[in-house]
Structures are given as C-alpha cells and as structure tokens.
C-alpha cells in the first residue's frame, strides 16, 4: 500500500511505484474472480441493514481511490445497500489522485456526498475547514466497533469525523515456512532477540540467506526503519519524529539505526547476496521473488514489507503454514507472515504501522447518512473481506470472513492495535525521496560517524522542507 497511504503530495510520489500497484491489482483480480461465486450468494441474501429497512430512494455520490478490480469489489459492497434502500450510488474511483481531486472539488463547491481518503491528514484539514460533518450522532453505537487507535485517527478536536472502512498492515514479516523448516526453525520469532537468533540459525545452515532485503529507491528500508522505530520507541515518539518535533539526530533514531544494522548483519551478512546483492537486486517486487520464486527453490527465508506483499507472491503459493509446504515452487509452496517483533517486554509490541481509507460525510442528507452508516456496519466490510485483498479495522467483522490465515492474521493485528500510525515517510512532504536515499546511505555504512553525518543531513533536509 506504499502508494495509497499518503498526503496529498506523497500520493503523486508513488507514480514510480505504479508497477507495484498494477501487480497487486492483478492478484486481487484473480482472487476476486475466484470468489465471485460466493459473492453472488451473499448478494442474493442481502445482509441485514437494520436502520434502513424502508426504501429511501434517491441517489448519493461517493468517491474513493479504488479503480479496476478494487472498484469492482467496492461496487459489490455497495450492491446490497442499493437493493435494500432503493438509493442509487454513483461511485467514482479517483485512483492515486483522490486527495487532490477531493481538495479541488471542495474548493470548487461541488464535493461528493461521501468520500474515502487514504490518509488522516486530509480528514483533519477538511474538518478544520468544516467541510465534513461529525458522525457520532449518525452512526451511533457503531463507532464502538473500532479500537481507540482508529477512532483517534478519525477524530478532529475530539469529534469523530470518519469511519475507517479499509485498513492495511505494514507490520508484517513474510516468510517461507518450508525454508524455516529446512533451517530447523519450528516457531516464528516473537521477540526482536529471537528474530536475530533465528537469522543466525538460518545463516548457520548455509543454504538460505535469512533476509531478502527490499531496497529499491529506499522506501522499503524506510518502512523497515519505521517498524523498528515504532517497536522500540512507541507511537508518541514516532509521531514526534514524523512531525520533526523529535530530531533525526536524537538517540532514539541512532539506537534504531544500530538495531537495524544488527538485523542486516555486518557488511550485510544476513542479506541475500550481501549488501551488494541487496542493492543490486532489491527492487520491489523483485526482492519478494527470492523467498517466493515462481520456479526452482527459494534462496532467502524472509521478506520485510507490508501486507501488500501478498499480491507479489505467485498465485500457486498457499497462504498459511500447512503440513505439506514444499521448497519447490512448482509443487505445493506456501507463504506466511508474522508480526514484526518488538524487544522482549516492550510496551509497544502491539503498536502498528499501516495505512487505511477513511470514509467522511461531506454533504448530509438521508441518502448519504444511510450510506455512511452502512459503511460503518460489519456487513459492508464482510463482503469485501470475503473477496480477499482487504482488511477491516472493524472489530465486529468476524475473522472467519477472511479467506485465508494470512489475511485473518492481518485483520486480527489491525483490530487489536493499541496505537496505529501511518507511514512516516509519506508525511515528509518535500523531502520524502531524500529520506529514502538517506536510509540507503545508513544501510550501506552504519558506522557511527556516517550515521551522525547522515542524521545531520536529514535534520537539515527536514528543516528545509517542513520549515522547522
């Protein structure tokens, strides 16, 4: 979800990652098609829409970023609503221009009645302009279906303005269960020190590299740094760093870089192909293929990135940790995830980094109120959950709705998150690509002197871009 979690400008920055998104969509398409049969059953039954039993009629417009197969899935979500209320929903998928398009529409005085945006910053901006309506009185008790982390992100001045309809988890480590087994690891690491120990075990075995590190232009390294920083220092410190209230030259950052260097190993000894190999072949999703190849055997055990990695895993891989997982990509290979581990005893173990789409009410009328109420209901999320490629922050969506153990684990982590933060790099308006490049510099040379020098550079860049 690298490309959707962002501020207005960050969104455009993801042009480079268009290919990533395309491949993700390709997979979602497959999943959507294979599960279309189950969908038709859901649609014909029609989930209970408690508050909208009588036909309202009329029409309502809604915008979101989803296009192509995600658009089809969302339309499937809307279908039962239209059927039971008689309201015609006009959906427009704005792609990665969602924030910009909505800004322009609000400024032009013709916004849609309901809109979903991929970042909480836009919600705050619109709320401060009184362009969106408070929702507490409309959705009522449904607001309790979301954990406090999510409610806080959808609130402005202690008033609830949004409903997190779709969520994504970047707190994941993907691993090949067969490689873990071959390396003699029987359970996934639950603490940071266990992760480092498991890396050593895998390296000890000699056949597989512990990690295939995605480097690309630096954003995967930034994501890795962010995960680690969050687990070590918690959401409060994370948000301070995101807004540059905390300096990059602070000990918390330096410490995180030091831990990161341990994960990578000296000179990249834990990485596939060493540091050189990681830099040469670490483009995304190329790096995913080393742990989950389409042919032959894997060469690495783990890949760090968000839940969107699923879309880059070849379709013949079974999600989960079945008994018959094979190393051979042409037999019955598997993929699975575990949560990015925190140091033992860390208070921040269930703090989560991720992304999501929040629904907001821009024009209040019976139709739009019914729609936002519907989007807050578990039954709406349930439909897409069944289709795959989706996770909900709504606690009332049963985990059994998810088609596989990997997405189930995702949803569980998302709904139980104590604190939830958005990707920090995407908040660095004006210097995000520089931050990525800086991450690569630290990765290649984690010596104290270089870290100090790059941190100083980052502070300068942040100050120039953010004005403080």
């Amino acid at each position, binding site marked *: 979800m690298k490309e959707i979690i962002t501020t207005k*400008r960050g969104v455009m920055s993801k042009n480079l990652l268009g290919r990533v998104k395309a491949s993700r969509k390709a997979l979602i398409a497959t999943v959507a098609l294979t599960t279309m049969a189950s969908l038709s059953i859901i649609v014909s039954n029609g989930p209970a829409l408690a508050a909208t039993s009588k036909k309202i009629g009329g029409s309502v417009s809604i915008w979101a970023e989803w296009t192509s197969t995600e658009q089809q899935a969302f339309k499937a979500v809307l279908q039962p609503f239209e059927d039971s209320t008689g309201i015609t929903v006009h959906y427009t998928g704005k792609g990665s221009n969602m924030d910009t398009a909505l800004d322009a529409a609000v400024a032009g005085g013709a916004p849609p009645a309901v809109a979903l945006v991929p970042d909480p910053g836009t919600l705050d901006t619109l709320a401060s302009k009184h362009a969106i309506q408070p929702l507490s009185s409309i959705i009522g008790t449904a607001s309790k279906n979301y954990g406090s982390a999510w409610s806080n992100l959808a609130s402005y001045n202690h008033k609830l303005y949004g409903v997190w309809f779709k969520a994504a988890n970047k707190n994941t480590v993907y691993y090949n269960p067969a490689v873990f087994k071959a390396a*003699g690891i029987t359970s996934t690491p639950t603490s940071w020190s266990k992760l480092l120990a498991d890396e050593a075990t895998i390296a000890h075995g000699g056949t597989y590299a512990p990690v295939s590190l995605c480097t690309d232009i630096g954003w995967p390294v930034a994501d890795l740094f962010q995960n680690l920083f969050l687990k070590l220092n918690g959401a409060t410190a994370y948000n301070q760093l995101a807004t540059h209230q905390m300096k990059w030259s602070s000990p918390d950052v330096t410490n995180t870089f030091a831990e990161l260097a341990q994960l990578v190993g000296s000179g*990249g000894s834990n990485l596939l*192909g*060493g540091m050189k190999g990681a830099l*040469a072949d670490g483009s995304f999703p190329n790096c995913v293929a080393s742990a989950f190849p389409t042919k032959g055997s894997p060469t690495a055990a783990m890949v760090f990135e968000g839940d969107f990695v699923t879309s880059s895993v070849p379709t013949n891989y079974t999600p989960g940790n079945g008994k018959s997982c094979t190393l051979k990509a042409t037999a019955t290979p598997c993929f699975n995830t575990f949560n990015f581990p925190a140091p033992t005893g860390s208070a921040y173990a269930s703090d989560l980094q991720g992304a999501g789409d929040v629904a907001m009410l821009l024009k209040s009328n019976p139709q739009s109120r019914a729609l936002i109420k519907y989007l807050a209901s578990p039954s709406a999320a349930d439909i897409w959950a069944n289709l795959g490629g989706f996770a909900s922050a709504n606690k009332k969506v049963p985990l059994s709705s998810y088609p596989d153990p990997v997405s189930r684990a995702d949803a569980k982590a998302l709904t139980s998150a104590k604190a939830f933060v958005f990707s920090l790099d995407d908040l660095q308006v004006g210097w995000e690509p520089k931050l990525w490049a800086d991450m690569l510099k630290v990765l290649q040379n984690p010596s104290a002197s270089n870290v100090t020098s790059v941190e100083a550079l980052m502070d300068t860049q942040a100050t120039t871009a953010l004005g403080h």
Partner: protein
Amino acid sequence: MTSITTEEPNVTSPKASRGRGWWRRNWVSLAFLAPGIIWLLAIVVYPTIATIRFSFFDESATKFVGLHNYASVFSTDEILTAFKNNIIWVLVFPFFVTFIGLMVAVLTERIRWATAFKAIIVMPIVFSTTASALVWRTIFDLDPHIGVVNAIEQTVSDWFSAPGAYPLNSSTGETVASLATFNAKGGPGGTLVSSSAVQPGGTVMMGLTRISSVTLQTLGAKTPVAPHEMAAGIAGLVWNDFSTSQPSNTTSIVSDEHGLPNLRLSLVSSKGSSVASTVTDASGDFSFSHVAPGSYHVQILASNFQIAFVGTFWLGSPSLTPVSSLNQTAQSLLSVPLIDLAMIISYIWIWAGFAMVLIGAGLAALNREVLEAAEIDGANEWQTLRRVTIPMLAPVLTVVFVTMVINVLKVFDIILNMAPGSSQGPATTLALTIYNDGFTGGIHSGLASAVAVILFLLVVPAMLWNLKKIKG
C-alpha cells in the same frame, strides 16, 4: 510622409504597409502560418516563460521567493550530485562518441558490405532508449549468470584462481573461521585446524557449518559415518554439523547431517610441518596410514575455501575516487560512481551510429585530391588521418561534438531505466532531478523550474554555436 502620401496607398511605404492592402495581400500566408505560430507560442514560448516565472516561486507555486530556489540549487547535495554527474558526462561522453564515430566512419569506407555494417551501427538510435537501457542493465548485471560482463570477468578470474569445492561467500563477509563449529578453529593462511591434538591410533572429528545444501548435493555428500580407529594411523571425519531436526546440536553427528566430500587435508606435526595429505570421501571420512608416533593436528587446506568470483557491481554507487571519509557534500561533489561509467559505455553504443553518419557524410564530401596527394607524398594511413582527414573534417567533428554535449547535458532516460533503485540517487543528473523534484515525490515546482532554467542556460550557448556553424 510628405507629398508622396496620397489617397492611393503606396506599396513601398512602411507606414502604408500596415494598411488594409497589406493584410489583403498577406492574409493567405498568415492563415497558413497561424497554426504554427499558435502552436509554438503554446508549447514553446509560454512554457519557457512560465518555467522562468515558476523558478521564483515556492514549492506550491503560490509565494514569490526571489532567488531562493537558485540558492537551494547550489546548496542541496542531491542537485550538486546531479551537477557533478553532468560534468562527468560532458567531459567523457562527447569526446569518446565523436572519436569512435570517426574511427568507425573511416574504417567503414574501406570494407565490403559497408552499408550493412553501417546499418547495424546505426540501429541503436532507432531503438527506444528505454529498451537499450534495459538491455545494458542486464549486460552489466551483478550476477554472472545474467550479466555478460561479469560472466567474462568470472571466466578470466577462474583461470587465475579457481574457486574451491566449498567457496566462501565473500559478498556476505564470510570467513573461514566462521565455518568452524566442532573441534576446529581458524589456522594460518585461511586454513582450518583441529582444536585437539591426535596421536596415531586415534580419531579426529571436525564439524563445519554454513555449507549450502546445494553444494552438498552437487558433491554427492552422504550421511557421515563416525571414524573407526586404526592401528598406527589416524582416521577422521569432517562433516556438515548442521541438522534441520536438531539445529542447536553442534557436538555430535545427527542422522540428517552430511559428510563433507572432496576436502583436501594435510596432517601437521607438532613442529608445524605437513607430513601427509589426503582427500575426504563421500561420507566425509579420511585416513592417514603409517603415521610415525607423535602428536598431530589435521589441517583443512585454504584452497578448499577459495572464494568464488563475486561480480563487479557495475550498476552500483561505489566510487572510483576515494571519498568515503569525506562529509556528505564533499562526497556528492567528488565521488565518481561506477554506474556512470557503465551508463556512458551504453550511451556511446546508442549514439556512435549517429556520430558515424554525420562524420561519414563529411568524409564523402572531402576533396579526394588532397587525400590522393597525401598518398602520393608517401604519408601512411595514420598520418593521412591525423594530418589531413581530421583537420579537413574539423567543422563536422565540432558539430558532432557540440551536439553530443547538448545531448548529454539533457541525459535522462538512460539513467531512469538503467540504474537500479539504490543507484538512482548517486547517478542522477540535472534532467532527472527536474523530473524527480517537479513530478514525483514531494513536488517542488519552484526548485525543479530553477534547475530547468539553469540547464537551459547551459544548453543555449552550445546550441547557438551549433546553429551558427550549421548555417555557414
């Protein structure tokens, strides 16, 4: 102006030329020119003016900031890196492409099938630079199985130092000592030596790890068998001390472990001299028979672990100049990333044909009598080229050279497509910076416009000079 001005408009009068008659006579021409003029105004003149205007505004193009963006251009490491890379390109590329173009043009004059040969040389210009860049990205790939350059390097390197049966993975910084787990330690000169001493009649077991199962498979490694004592001899086993079922067991043989075949060993006496040598069998077992009484160590020779060739990271940012100890700004100004070299080579491949065509045309137009005179005077080929052809071709050569200077000042697509993500930053140029700052990431149209204006100013003199040359 005076008495000439009458009721009849005068054709030659400047004042009258703006009159109805002028329009009547020229409206057809104007009508035909209009689309072109409007087009030019819309896509050349207006954007140029707008860019210059933007360069004085902040990142959202709303607030006037004066020369601030221009100051940033010269104080931002990324843009300084771009400047430096542009300078490298301008210094290296035009010269070599002109030189190679000249050589090819001169040589193709003398061969059969010249047309076919020229067609092949010219072909890369026809390809999309993106396609060429992707091809060259593969050619320079780090993995010798993919990149032909590294494959050649590997072949040559293997002649001089063939990798051992158990090559160390030097890319991850593996050392011989890191392989030792049981009764083994790093010895002199990259060898491994048994920790405990052994007497004739005794046995030695040495456990190693970090051996890839692929290597074991290739060597046909079998289940290790504990060595049997032999009279007046030393028997032993070297095995891969890593078990999937018991990964933490590093002291005894487990049934799913493997012996290490083909290891070259020597028996070292207490004085440190080698008294016998042998090779392990498929189960990793070995024996030294008829050993004189004394205390011995078993040594695994360094040649077993001879490092396999590691590709040159042609597409990486390691600098050809030693800059690692300098600060960030000095690094961006002084480093010469290896990828610049790889990209320049690729770009020469693309543009050599263009240079050849222009120079070839110049050659065809040369006065043959002068060349014949040189021949009659006894000048050899090289002298003719150096003293006659090149001076006479000088105008064409300079046009090619300057065109190539303009070309590489704007170099963009080959970098975007050939540099892997991690090298995009170190390999950036002004044009790529404009794209990155202006259209991706945290969009800063002001800064991007300032860079564009500077790039424009750099290109204009070369362009004007070229226009003048071409005209006359």
